[in-house]
């Protein structure tokens, strides 16, 4: 194996891992605060992608504005879905929450089919995203480097927010012990709203890079990122924000290694292998790679 192949492999893992880290981070933010495994998260991404499609195809807005509005729509759908659907279930059982998010996901998918089209639509993405560039002899599309850069910036910003603002500190406290945080005056509704807003924001960013890679948007597109998020979250630990980032990169590493090493006859089973690894992981190490300081308690 020479250096170029190694570098190419590294770029692939890092760019994929960056995207997956953002996906799983969006899931964990909500899970950490209200113990909800949000099946509708994939649809947050789809909504943003549709906004990108509509603004890109039917308006002549400059692309930074389109991107900002796409992200804003992710934030809006995250915030609103919590307000409309999830708030009523806050004190119910975990399964009720899960089933609700499943139902919300189905409703959104059918609405896209009904209101837009069951067929996929091409998302106009600025050309420089897919421009090939050469670094140290390796040719790669620019979007791979852009996602790495974006992820570094976002993660740094999130770390600063979570560490140095009162809201961030309160979020971390609430995800460790929700009831005690409330006893200290941290408002429950605010925490949960903020968690959904951050989740929607990340979904918006993911939508940009996801549709840049696939080039299109369709009603069911949220399913794949959702599954990736699940795996990454499980690998990294459900209760740890850094864990979910690590999980995203580990997932990208395993997926790339499997792609390289599996014989071509078994390549179509890659997802089955991935999920079998996930199950083994959950059975052997239910707390994930990084264990958060979560205490058994339900949101009240």
């Amino acid at each position: 194996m020479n250096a170029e192949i190694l570098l190419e492999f590294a770029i692939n893992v890092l760019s994929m891992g960056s995207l997956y880290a953002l996906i799983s981070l969006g899931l964990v933010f909500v899970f950490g605060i209200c113990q909800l495994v949000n099946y509708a998260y994939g649809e947050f991404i789809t909504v943003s992608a549709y906004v990108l499609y509509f603004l890109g195809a039917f308006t002549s807005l400059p692309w930074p504005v389109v991107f900002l509005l796409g992200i804003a729509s992710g934030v809006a759908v995250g915030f609103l879905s919590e307000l409309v659907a999830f708030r009523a279930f806050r004190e119910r059982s975990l399964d009720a929450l899960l089933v609700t998010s499943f139902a919300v996901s189905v409703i959104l998918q059918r609405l896209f089919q009904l209101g837009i089209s069951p067929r996929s639509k091409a998302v106009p993405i600025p050309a420089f995203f897919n421009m090939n560039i050469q670094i140290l002899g390796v040719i790669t599309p620019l979007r791979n480097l852009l996602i790495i850069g974006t992820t570094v910036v976002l993660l740094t910003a999130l770390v600063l927010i979570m560490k140095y603002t009162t809201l961030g500190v309160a979020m971390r406290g609430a995800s460790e012990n929700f009831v005690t945080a409330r006893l200290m005056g941290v408002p429950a509704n605010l925490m949960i709203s903020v968690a959904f807003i951050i989740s929607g924001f990340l979904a918006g960013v993911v939508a940009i890079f996801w549709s840049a890679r696939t080039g299109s948007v369709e009603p069911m597109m949220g399913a794949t990122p959702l599954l990736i998020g699940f795996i990454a979250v499980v690998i990294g630990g459900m209760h740890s924000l850094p864990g979910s980032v690590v999980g995203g990169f580990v997932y990208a590493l395993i997926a790339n290694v499997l792609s390289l090493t599996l014989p071509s006859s078994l390549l179509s089973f890659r997802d089955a292998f991935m999920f079998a690894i996930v199950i083994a992981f959950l059975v052997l190490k239910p707390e994930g790679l990084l264990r958060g300081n979560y205490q058994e308690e339900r949101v009240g």
Partner: protein
Amino acid sequence: MNSAKSFSPKQESNKRSAVRDFIEYFDFTRKSSTVVFLIFILTAIGFFIWWLNIPFIEDIFTAATITLIMTLGFQLYMGNSGILNWSYVGYVGIGAFTSAIFSMTPAVKAMQIPTMYPFLINLHLPFPLALAAGAVVAMIVAAIVAWPMMRLSDAVGAITQFALLIVINVMLSQWSQVTNGPRTFTLGGTQRLTTLWVALGVAVLVIIAVYYFKESSLGLKLRATRDDRHAARSSGINFVAVRYFGYVISACIGGLAGGLYSHYILSITASSFYMSELFLILSMLVIGGSMSVSGAFFGTLLVTLLRQGLRQAELFLTRSGFEASGSTEIVVAIMMIIFLVWQADGITGGRELTWQSIKRRLPSGSKKRDKMIKNKKQEEEA
């Protein structure tokens, strides 16, 4: 609460008490009446539809009866253990493919699915045995994979089961030598083997099985783990084992339903046993009430009627120029959320339909009921 009575007083071990045990176990007005009512309602509808002799309606009824069997198997685990089993439809798929492979003749298989392993091509069983084989294979798969997952609960448990569903789905959709891969698997060479009467007959057996499972000591233990895992454990119930057996039996019924389904619909793909199917039976169970067999029964009945009505409306709208396909799922999903918010135990309230519950609603019984409520109120006040 019902089944607490089914424990016999041990001190009297003569014949009379054995008979009384037997009668108590099948205590008609309080328990067995449920089974009789459900079977009666199902059979009555079946006969009526047979008498109507409209193929379109017969098809709807047969499909609904197969769905009922699926929902009953789903209820067996979810209702008693309180755990939502996301992987359940995977076992339905396993049963569907397995029984199809067994029931088709080698010649047809060789023609339809040339990629299939030779030893599978040569397998052949008559239809009833092929159905049983589907159920057994689904059960074996569940028996092999389930044990280590049973101690996981809450979010981790849910994701594990979800991941398992995806593994099963990928296997079904990619294993060309067994399932014809992503292409459609067509059961050529036979007429529709799952007739109205076959589906009805199996449904009757499954209603009996699921109901008496709930009343059995295993079912009682499983329900105890649902209500309080720690208390159940400290009273000597091995919750992993109890859940395991419930899960495996549920997978077995799922496999059986899958076999009926594939011999009804005659062409299947892995995607027939995935999210939308799961969503369908989940909506039936939630709307009907997951805690009772009657809930699964009436949920299936209600949602089927609702969906058929909506589908007709949808077709009408589409014909008149409105794009409406998919709106049925939206309505069902919204109904499900509404039920979860206001009536989390579904239309049955988690109770069974029994002779007593009917009597209480009859005019003559309502006085007694009023009195009971009054007494209860007084007790509460005291």
